């Protein structure tokens, strides 16, 4: 008899989801889906609000990456009101953005993903978690907790609060950075860079080889979307979007033109929309043997689309990664490897930004006046490309808001990955806890 296996809730991810797997009479997988079970409706309830308030409202979309929503919104409102932040305002925003990637990557890698690798995917679920990891590696766990907290403290010093910040405002930043504050941030950033390099070595030794195995569950062949600067270097702040086809050819465009390339679609079973590459002209298909229109965002996508990384240590790691896995690399678990390379980039980039003396300029904000307009703000969030698109009326209040978040871009690929994992792991209808966890691992890789 056909039956359904439900994995609920998906755990050790930063959000709400369940996996539903349909088995046929023989116990083979007929279909598998990721269902996003929560919708708050930000695009709707921000309508009518004064646009300058949005950076402080939409941050609540995600408590894990509030900085990314905060900053994308500030950028979008800049566009609506046609203001350009002064250099210090721009640099302070980028500093916060890049810095915010660091605690998030530490959280995801060590607290959420690492237990599957360091303790093993089949390990008892009462142990397969950060507490089990802390028991086995107490010194490492303490160090991760300490350094992650340091990153959050640095963000709080810059932006008032680490979670749900308030300092990015239309036209720039709410306050300048003092010379002494910078000195302390530089000392702290040096500690973060040391730890990032250590973390990459640890990961290489204990985790990443397991991610490199060729025939791992969750296999899917897709295109990729990420952000690059005018020279093709990796960018986390705003830049040009680059959409790469599965064959590695790509096309660059300005974020304001996203609607010409990407299209949103809804399915009856999920509260998350699916986005696909409309400009490829092939529509959307989740046929596992011949997917169409499917691309991915997140760490692996960013490393695939960029030509190089402008900081030395991360570039060396990227070159080695590319020599081994090719471009674009497709294996889903390689997200973890890419994440650790990006961690090193973020730590290096924070150091570069802090060294820039323009950061200390007192002029951090260009005054704005409400007007009718449209603005598109975009940044790279841990989960992937984040786009906020607003329109305002002549009072400067929101008339329309469209948000495409990292998860939405990946919905199609996550469904394909979970289906592949389920198809290859479930035999004769058997789907015990360990198999369920291995299926979840294919989804976990897409988490921040």
């Amino acid at each position: 008899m056909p039956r359904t296996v439900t994995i609920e809730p998906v755990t050790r991810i930063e959000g709400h989801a369940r996996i539903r797997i349909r088995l046929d009479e023989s116990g083979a997988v007929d279909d598998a889906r990721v269902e996003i079970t929560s919708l708050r409706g930000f695009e709707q309830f921000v309508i009518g609000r004064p646009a300058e308030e949005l950076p402080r409202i939409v941050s609540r979309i995600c408590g894990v990456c509030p900085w990314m929503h905060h900053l994308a919104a500030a950028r979008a409102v800049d566009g609506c009101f046609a203001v350009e932040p002064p250099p210090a305002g721009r640099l302070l925003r980028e500093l916060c953005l890049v810095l915010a990637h660091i605690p998030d990557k530490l959280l995801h890698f060590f607290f959420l993903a690492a237990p599957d690798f360091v303790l093993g995917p089949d390990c008892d679920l009462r142990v397969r978690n950060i507490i089990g990891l802390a028991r086995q590696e107490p010194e490492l766990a303490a160090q991760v907790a300490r350094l992650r907290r340091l990153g959050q403290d640095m963000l709080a010093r810059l932006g008032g609060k680490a979670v749900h910040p308030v300092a990015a405002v239309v036209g720039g930043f709410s306050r300048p950075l003092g010379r002494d504050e910078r000195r302390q941030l530089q000392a702290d950033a040096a500690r973060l860079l040391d730890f990032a390099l250590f973390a990459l070595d640890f990961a290489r030794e204990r985790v990443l080889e397991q991610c490199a195995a060729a025939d791992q569950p969750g296999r899917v062949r897709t295109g990729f979307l990420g952000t690059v600067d005018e020279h093709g270097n990796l960018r986390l702040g705003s830049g040009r979007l680059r959409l790469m086809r599965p064959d590695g050819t790509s096309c660059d465009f300005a974020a304001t033109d996203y609607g010409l390339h990407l299209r949103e679609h809804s399915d009856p079973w999920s509260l998350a929309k699916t986005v696909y590459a409309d400009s490829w002209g092939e529509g959307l298909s989740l046929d596992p043997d011949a997917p169409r229109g499917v691309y991915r965002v997140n760490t692996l996508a960013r490393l695939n689309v960029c030509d190089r990384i402008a900081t030395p240590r991360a570039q060396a790691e990227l070159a080695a990664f590319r020599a081994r896995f090719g471009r674009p690399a497709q294996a889903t678990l390689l997200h973890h490897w890419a994440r650790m390379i990006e961690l090193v980039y973020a730590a290096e980039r924070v150091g570069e930004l802090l060294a820039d003396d323009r950061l200390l300029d007192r002029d951090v904000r260009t005054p704005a006046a409400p007007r009718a307009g449209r603005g598109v703000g975009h940044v790279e969030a841990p989960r992937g490309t984040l786009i906020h698109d607003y329109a305002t009326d002549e009072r400067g209040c929101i008339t329309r808001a469209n948000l495409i978040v990292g998860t939405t871009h990946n919905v199609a690929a996550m469904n394909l990955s979970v289906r592949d994992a389920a198809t290859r792991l479930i035999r004769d209808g058997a789907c015990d806890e360990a198999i369920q966890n291995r299926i979840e691992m294919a989804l976990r890789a897409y988490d921040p």
Partner: protein
Amino acid sequence: MKPRLASEWLHSCAGCEIALVDLGEGLLELLARVEIVHFPLLMDQKYAGRAGEGDGPELPAADLGLVSGGVASEEQRAILLAMRRSCRTLIALGTCATHGGIPALANERSQAAVRAGVFADCGPAPAEAPACLERVYAVDEVVRPDLCVPGCPPRPEAIAAAILAVLDDELPATPAKSVCETCPARREGRAATRSARRFLDNAEYDPDEDLTRMRCLLEQGLLCMGPVTAGGCGGSGPPLCVQVRVPCRGCYGPVRPGSNPLLDLMNGLAGQGVDRRSVVDRRSLLRFCGAHGLLRPVAGPR
């Protein structure tokens, strides 16, 4: 035997859980004191029974439960009821749980209208997705929590203090001061302008001087929710937003339980001679406390 801890998140963003993780090494110490029986962010226990079916999910018995987020769907309601059944002491964590939080801004429309609006440009709203309730509720509109810890998010130390107090069989004192009462900005007792200015340019202050030298943001004419908002966000220090020279927006909820911060603030401003019409979108002054019927659908366009 260690006390058992369960945690769930409902109509929320994970910020409260991140704040807990922000305890750093303190988190590891805290986790070592308890046995976690259910915690979707950190651990792999699944529901027994489905969230959307029958009596809802079953959760293991716990001495202490943390629940963040408001309640906006049948599934979330079922999970909250299950948490209440299984937890001896239940803490409503964060402003979404205590007052609805930002997602309760949606209460100016029906949940069904919000859903239809979100999907309007790409087809019908998902028919097989979890059914929504008619509006966003705070936790105490569905079950009775034993303790409320507001904040968006609450301070990590405040979360730890609440957990430890429950483990030690005490209930922590809830602060009764407003944000203003914890704010060192200089007050002269009268507003500098007759209208409330939107936050389109920075406040006036000298960045080399500390907060005690900066004039109160509200007196500068910037709308600030400090007078009507529960304090404590800065611990023993100044309010966090004011530290970076940004006015308060009320994220700890009303300072007086059961009060309406919109009315209280507008009355206060009127007393200072500030024209109420200068406040654009007055109802968004309730942006953190739209549950408990404070925000309701309005007829016609906003």
